[in-house]
């Protein structure tokens, strides 16, 4: 009884064979049965039932439903949900109940989608394995001894396990795409500015991007259309007319030029991963695409630049968690300084503390030019590389991650090894581009992701290619053994 596609469920609802309430109950049941994965921080059964009932009532009253009305899903616990605790995977926000809804939450609610709860994640979205959650690690449904990837690990695991047909995620350095690859689902990171960040708890503001994880590119497109759009409450939101994403899905790929960046196939790439990605590229070629060998010369600087810029912004973004207004407050403080230092030491996990320290250092007088400013220059070079490449090609392809899902605990003690898991994804965030990870089959029984990167605002072209690939293959339909 795993979740079907959004389109299939919408058809069931439209035909009156199923009600939104039934779909919600099914999803809640699956979540309960899949509790061992720890993919959810909170299940909101009451909220889900109320929302489903409302959708059913609207449908009964003859209201024209959107494609998402009545479809159950889950939100990453980074999106503020009015009246529903939003922890961001942190002890700091254990009891934080937002008084408002994020823009993404508003959009999906008004489309009639029914949230059944909040998914697990690395604390404040900092991590590539979901092991940094204050609410416990998440197991990969393909092999529960392995990580689901991160930081949107709970969302990826919940979709892969068939608990929900889609889940929201956020991607700062690969946090949607890498877990999508590890869990064998499709993960879309839109162009920076396409989806409002209003109500999305900040990690690194210039990189943070809301998106979606689903079973197919077509489902991602439906959700993308619902959440994309200008929001005056986010000054970095971009005012651009909506594109006919869905209408373009069925376009043939004849003549589509796909750049294959040689830097993405270096020595760090696991053999099975390379094979699967080449097989996917061959399939795209068979569909009419033209593969072009390209180079992204500064790709190997991306990790270093990312791990300066993101922590720098985080060190400032997370200063508000000071124990004064909301969130964890120490019981031990004897002075103002202790109120700050103890509340933060108790409330934040070690990876968050590490990044706050790194970021504070990078912004400090005397180091700013050498680190933050230099990283910004590298960022510009990386964006220039992409711009030059996109003068020649329509999309760029490569493996989403150099390896398949690693074992729980395998890299937990080695921050640098962990950071290397982001090697193919962070550059996209630095350049603000859209990218998608699509399943490319299994290597040693574990999913491999193909990453497609598009020029800014060319999500439709990218979704089209991903959809055509999925029309011709069944990799995205592969499921872990129950």
């Amino acid at each position, binding site marked *: 009884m795993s979740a079907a596609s959004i389109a299939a469920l919408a058809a069931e609802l439209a035909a009156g064979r199923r009600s939104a309430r039934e779909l919600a109950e099914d999803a809640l049941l699956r979540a309960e049965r899949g509790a061992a994965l720890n993919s959810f921080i909170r299940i909101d059964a009451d909220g889900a039932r109320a929302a489903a009932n409302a959708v059913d009532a609207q449908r009964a009253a003859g209201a024209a439903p959107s494609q998402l009305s009545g479809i159950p899903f889950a939100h990453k616990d980074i999106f503020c949900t009015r009246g529903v605790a*939003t922890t961001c995977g942190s002890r700091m926000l254990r009891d934080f109940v*937002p008084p*408002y809804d994020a823009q993404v939450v508003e959009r999906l609610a008004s489309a009639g989608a029914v949230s059944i709860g909040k998914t697990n994640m690395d604390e404040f979205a900092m991590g590539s394995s979901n092991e940094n959650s204050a609410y416990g690690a998440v197991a990969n449904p393909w092999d529960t001894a392995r990580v689901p990837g991160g930081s949107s690990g709970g969302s990826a695991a919940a979709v892969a396990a068939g608990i929900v047909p889609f889940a929201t995620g956020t991607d700062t350095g690969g946090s949607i795409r890498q877990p999508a690859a590890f869990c064998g689902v499709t993960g879309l990171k839109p162009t920076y500015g396409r989806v409002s960040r209003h109500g999305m708890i*900040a990690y690194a503001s210039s990189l943070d991007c809301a998106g979606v994880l689903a079973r197919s590119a077509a489902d991602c497109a439906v959700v993308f259309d619902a959440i994309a759009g200008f929001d005056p409450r986010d*000054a970095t939101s971009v005012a651009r007319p909506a594109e006919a994403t869905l209408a373009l899905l069925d376009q043939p790929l004849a003549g589509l030029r796909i750049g294959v960046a040689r830097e993405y196939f270096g020595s760090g790439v696991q053999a099975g991963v390379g094979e699967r990605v080449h097989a996917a590229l061959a399939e795209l070629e068979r569909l009419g695409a033209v593969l072009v060998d390209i180079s992204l010369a500064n790709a190997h600087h991306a990790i270093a630049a990312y791990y300066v810029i993101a922590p720098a*912004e985080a060190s*400032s973004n997370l200063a*508000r968690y000071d124990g004064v207004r909301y969130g964890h407050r120490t019981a031990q403080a004897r002075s103002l300084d202790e109120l700050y230092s103890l509340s933060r030491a108790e409330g934040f996990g070690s990876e968050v503390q590490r990044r706050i320290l790194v970021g*504070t250092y990078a912004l400090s007088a005397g180091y700013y030019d050498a680190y933050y400013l230099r990283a910004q220059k590298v960022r510009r070079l990386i964006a220039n590389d992409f711009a030059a490449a996109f003068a020649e090609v329509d999309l760029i392809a490569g493996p989403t991650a150099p390896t398949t899902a690693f074992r729980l605990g395998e890299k937990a003690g080695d921050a640098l090894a962990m950071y290397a898991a982001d090697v193919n994804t962070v550059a996209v965030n630095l350049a603000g581009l859209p990218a998608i990870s699509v399943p490319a089959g299994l290597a040693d029984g574990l999913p491999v992701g193909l990453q497609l990167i598009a020029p800014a605002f060319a999500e439709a072209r990218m979704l089209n290619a991903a959809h055509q690939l999925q029309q011709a293959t069944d990799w995205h339909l592969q499921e872990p053994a129950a």
Partner: protein
Amino acid sequence: MNARMKPAASAWQAVIGLEIHAQLSTASKLFSGASTAYGAEPNTQTALLDCAMPGTLPVPNREAVRKAIQFGLAIDATIAPQSVFARKNYFYPDLPKGYQISQYELPVVGAGRLRVRVDDGRVIEVEIQRAHLEEDAGKSVHDAFHAETGIDLNRAGTPLLEIVSAPVLHSAAEAVAYMRTVHTLVRWLGICDGNMQEGSFRCDCNVSVRRGSDAPLGTRTEIKNVNSFRFVEKAIEYEIERQIRALENGEAIVQETRLYDPARHQTRSMRSKESADDYRYFPDPDLPPLVIAAADIARERDALPELPQARRERYVAQLGLPEADADQLCADRATADYFEAVLAVLPGQAKLCANWVLGEVAASLNEAGIEIAAAPVSAAALAQLLARLREGSISGKIAKDVFAAMWAGEGSADAIIEARGLRQISDSGALAAAIAAVLAEHPSQVADYRGGNEKLLQFFVGQAMKRTRGQANPQQLNELLRRALAG
């Protein structure tokens, strides 16, 4: 005292720079929709952003940007086509985000200048290095709860324009004159209400001293948050003297933040909030660069009012007003506009109009403790009164009485003159009759006068005025009396 042991204070030069914080008079905050109105119940004017709720984002208030542009144009500064909001990071309980959004490397207003008239009559040109937009912090409330500090975030996020002068001021008097000129300008432009009690206009003073104007700059201290002209003057005077005394005693000046204590007229070292603060400024990633189109600047330039400096010069050069009058009239725009509205009805009578605006009107406003905008006598009403005075229908003395009645709400000048029968007697027949009666009543004084005591003329004028209940045209009365006494 031996001059060699204690060098004259004139050997020292004070070097002063001011950072003025002018609260921009916008309806809502710099980055949120919450109201900026003063005096509300604590924490009732706070949007989610002002409490730094997770997930909230700042959106710049275009009205605040417009006001910053207006200031920049008024000081002849370059308006940056692209300026950058930066975060100033520090922990403080009334700073909810843990950073203040300000502008650092690229401020919206670049270098400009302002001509300042100092009390001793000198005019100095003060270089302004920059003016930038920033948000105010909240307030810590120390007296509301026992042994605990309350936080009021109503003020958090209020838009400020920080106006930074170059260190080019050399005395407390120059600093105050500069501050007053800026105060006049921001009120004139309507970008700040200038209310210093409410903290809408306040200033940090950077003070150092050096031996003569060629010596390298001395170590400076910063006196924080001074909110009156007098306090600025006293604080700087004290600080200059303190520094000179310390240096003459062989002590070093410590670079520090000091607070002014108005009760003692002293500055004292503030518990330094981390004197070597590293604010880790960096561009705010939530806010794209603030782009200002040339067309927007041109539109603000076209809409800029005649500035106080220009108007003051016009009053002297074209209207022939004394500089002191021009200064006072241009101390605020409402007064100058009021004056011009009166003058419009009485062309060529600038001095008369100025006398009344700066005399009766100013005195009455002062007594009532109100602003000219709230004056019960409008410019048009005053103009009518002055017209009656000019044409000789009433005397100056009567005019003052009529003005008082107008102020008290008894009606227009004409109505009051009519109702009270105050029209001046210029009819020579009526005046002659009154004079004849006065002379008949006082034969001995008449004899004295005619005997050479011409001072008695004023006595007869007084008597005749009494008879006409003050309504006699004084010039005509003088003339007729002189003739009658001569006869």
